[in-house]
């Protein structure tokens, strides 16, 4: 089985600024890739290109072999995507929002109901299913975004800061959920929390100024210095000119 996610020389320029510079990597089934980097490093832009939201300046990406530029709808069918900040329609109830996503994804009738119920169970949203999303706390909103991404049980998950804004218990829940799904999927998560990477990721990529600086297992990366934190700082801070 070839890689489920293939990123192939992906580049994005905004005006004269290069946000993502010739990035290539692949993620196979069973891998959980932690995507690390300082703010503005190009993490989100890379994920947006993979999700088909931002059009690459050059290069491309494939999800389950489907090119995100040439066959965007086919690629998106295989993808569960949690955008940064987990945007949702505030006036909709949790149930109505998930029903909308299920409908767009082509599920009807009892299958749609089963999928929605399953996604709500995974993210423990049953208690708030009839509440408008705008009345929910940040942690619940994040979980609605997560439920939306998991609804169709996609082979590829791209989660932009899935645990941002969650309390420690909720963080633990989400990590457990990701670990539980990991064997059957290719997952990319971006995060600022380095211990999260050690806890759930089988591989870590450090990106800064649009370029991949390191690609290894979290343990191997941490072994390069005194801790993963130190290695991260060492790699991403601009080098002092001697």
């Amino acid at each position: 089985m070839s890689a489920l996610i293939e990123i192939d020389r992906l580049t994005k320029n905004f005006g004269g600024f290069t946000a993502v510079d010739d990035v290539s990597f692949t993620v196979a089934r069973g891998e959980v890739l932690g995507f690390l980097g300082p703010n503005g490093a190009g993490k989100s832009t890379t994920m947006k290109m993979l999700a088909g939201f931002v059009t690459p300046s050059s290069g491309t990406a494939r999800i389950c072999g489907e090119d995100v530029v040439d066959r965007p709808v086919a690629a998106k069918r295989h993808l569960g995507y949690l955008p940064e900040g987990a945007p949702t329609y505030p006036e909709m109830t949790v149930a109505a929002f998930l029903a909308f996503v299920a409908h767009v994804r082509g599920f009807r009738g009892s299958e749609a109901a089963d999928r929605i119920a399953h996604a709500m169970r995974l993210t423990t949203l049953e208690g708030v299913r009839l509440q408008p999303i705008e009345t929910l706390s940040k942690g619940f909103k994040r979980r609605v975004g997560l439920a939306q991404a998991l609804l169709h049980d996609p082979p590829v998950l791209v989660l932009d800061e899935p645990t941002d804004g969650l309390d420690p218990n909720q963080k633990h829940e989400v990590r457990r959920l990701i670990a539980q799904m990991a064997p059957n999927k290719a997952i990319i998560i971006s995060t600022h929390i380095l211990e999260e990477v050690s806890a759930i990721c089988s591989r870590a990529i450090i990106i800064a100024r649009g370029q991949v600086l390191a690609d290894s297992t979290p343990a191997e990366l941490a072994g390069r210095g005194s801790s993963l934190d130190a290695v991260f700082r060492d790699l991403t801070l601009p080098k002092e000119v001697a």
Partner: protein
Amino acid sequence: MGGALTVARRELSGYFATPVAYVFIVIFLIMSGALTFTLGNFFGRGTADLQPFFGFVPWLFLFLVPALTMRLWAEERRLGTIELLLTLPITQWQAVLGKFLAAWAFCAIALVLTFPLVLTVNYLGNPDNGVIVTGYVGCLLVAGTYLAVGAAISALTKNQVIAFVLAVAVCFLFAAAGSPVVTEFLSTRIPALAEIARGISITDRLNGFSRGVVTLRDLIFFASFIGFWLFANAVAVDHRKAD
């Protein structure tokens, strides 16, 4: 088409989940009724028809429709939901069409709710109900053209006020292009432009409908006008979606 209808259904229920729908409908009904009976001299005219009503509706829509469209894309951008919508497995074209259809259906609902006028005029006299039907069709087509213009402009900016003002200005251009003031001014100065102005005028096209005359030319005009602006909308969404 399925994707577009799903988007349309969500949008339409979104209107009714917020006060937007109720404010729009109530103001539209009050204004259209009041104008018809006062300025339109409904009772004094001595004819049983809805000509005054059909005369005012396009001008009401000129302000109310841009108020509806200004948030179509601007709001999605502000909330970030545009990223969610456009990473679902639908084409951008389906998203554009879905939003347009929802807003259009909403305008149709507002128009249907003016039915007491139809009942009144039928109670008082013996109107030609065929003309009333074509008049309503004409109003719906005008709403469609304003919606298509407003939605395309909304896709260009994050700012709802800018979207509103620009949409009113552009819609006014097409509404006023056929008015005597404009055509007389142009035909004395620039005769070539007068003909073009008359050609793109929305109100000119509507006159036929409110007299009960529906021509293929007018239908093609409205269809291509709406089609053009929806295309512009899709292009604008594609270019500006991630800004």
